[in-house]
């Protein structure tokens, strides 16, 4: 079971389409999310929208698929603050070196970001959702969520997949790459402008980097898909594309945070 199959899994995509109320779904980014056994590391309450630069955030959703078993409260499962997605973007404090606050020392977020206690006190109590391997949660990019330490004797591992509709724009300066999942529209490109080939064909064509550059998409390049029987040159081309895409995503993510 490769990640590509999980990212395109019909059950997962059906849930994402339902949550976003859209037939045009793209995958923005992914990561393997691990907490080692007996780890005191945690993710402080935060909104995924804060540094992603994607707008509107309400049309973005994170799917978190449990790979280890179980992922319960003892293992540091995700907990969510009900209704917090309706508050819009909340201010986040940055503590990159985790030295402003002793309670933040083991915060695993890239910038050590956290939401101030005075705001947290106004939110409803969080709800933890324990998972068995193969189960997933979905949460809006605006939903405040967190996860605690892994007190178990095995690593807690999940796959975080971040989906968006075709109407989402990247507001930060560097053009990023997105993976087509389903539907007939490019991000920010009308159906009228790209109805000459199917999205599958265009995604396949994008394996050629020159073609990809000539697409002139406003906010995202299309992730190149490898041919059915890729050779070493195809893999190398994919590896270069991935490296470049991640560099651009990092440039955007670590650009001046909105609250600095």
């Amino acid at each position, binding site marked *: 079971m490769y990640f590509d199959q999980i990212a395109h899994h019909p059950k997962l995509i059906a849930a994402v389409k339902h949550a976003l109320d859209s037939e045009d779904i793209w995958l923005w980014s992914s990561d*393997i999310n691990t907490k080692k056994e007996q780890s005191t590391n945690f993710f402080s309450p935060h909104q995924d929208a804060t540094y992603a630069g994607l707008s509107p955030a309400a049309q973005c959703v994170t799917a978190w698929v449990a790979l280890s078993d179980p992922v319960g409260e003892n293992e540091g499962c995700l907990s969510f603050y009900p209704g917090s997605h309706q508050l819009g973007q909340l201010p986040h404090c940055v503590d990159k070196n985790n030295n402003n606050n002793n309670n933040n020392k083991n915060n695993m977020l890239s910038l050590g970001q956290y939401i101030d206690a005075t705001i947290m006190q106004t939110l409803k109590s969080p709800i933890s959702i324990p998972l068995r391997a193969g189960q997933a949660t*979905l949460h809006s990019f605006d939903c405040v969520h967190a996860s605690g330490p892994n007190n178990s004797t095995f690593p807690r591992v999940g796959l975080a997949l971040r989906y968006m509709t075709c109407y989402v724009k990247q507001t930060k300066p560097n053009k990023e790459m997105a993976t087509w999942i389903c539907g007939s529209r490019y991000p920010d490109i009308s159906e009228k402008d790209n109805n000459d080939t199917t999205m599958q064909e265009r995604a396949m064509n994008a394996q050629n980097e020159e073609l990809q550059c000539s697409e002139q998409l406003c906010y995202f390049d299309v992730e190149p898909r490898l041919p059915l029987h890729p050779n070493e040159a195809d893999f190398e081309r994919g590896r270069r594309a991935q490296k470049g895409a991640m560099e651009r995503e990092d440039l955007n993510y670590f650009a001046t945070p909105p609250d600095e």
Partner: protein
Amino acid sequence: MAFQRDGFAGPIDIISGSEAELALEEVQKELSEKEANRFKLHLVLPCILTKLHIILN
């Protein structure tokens, strides 16, 4: 729907426990000291890239 009201939903059954176990085996080959691995391409999988790296080097 709970997602619209609360901003989250779950648990949702996606893959079987045995399929998750297979994926976990692939993941464990990729885990770094940083405890997190971000990636873009979902067909060019991290595990395939590792194999390719071995082939090319």
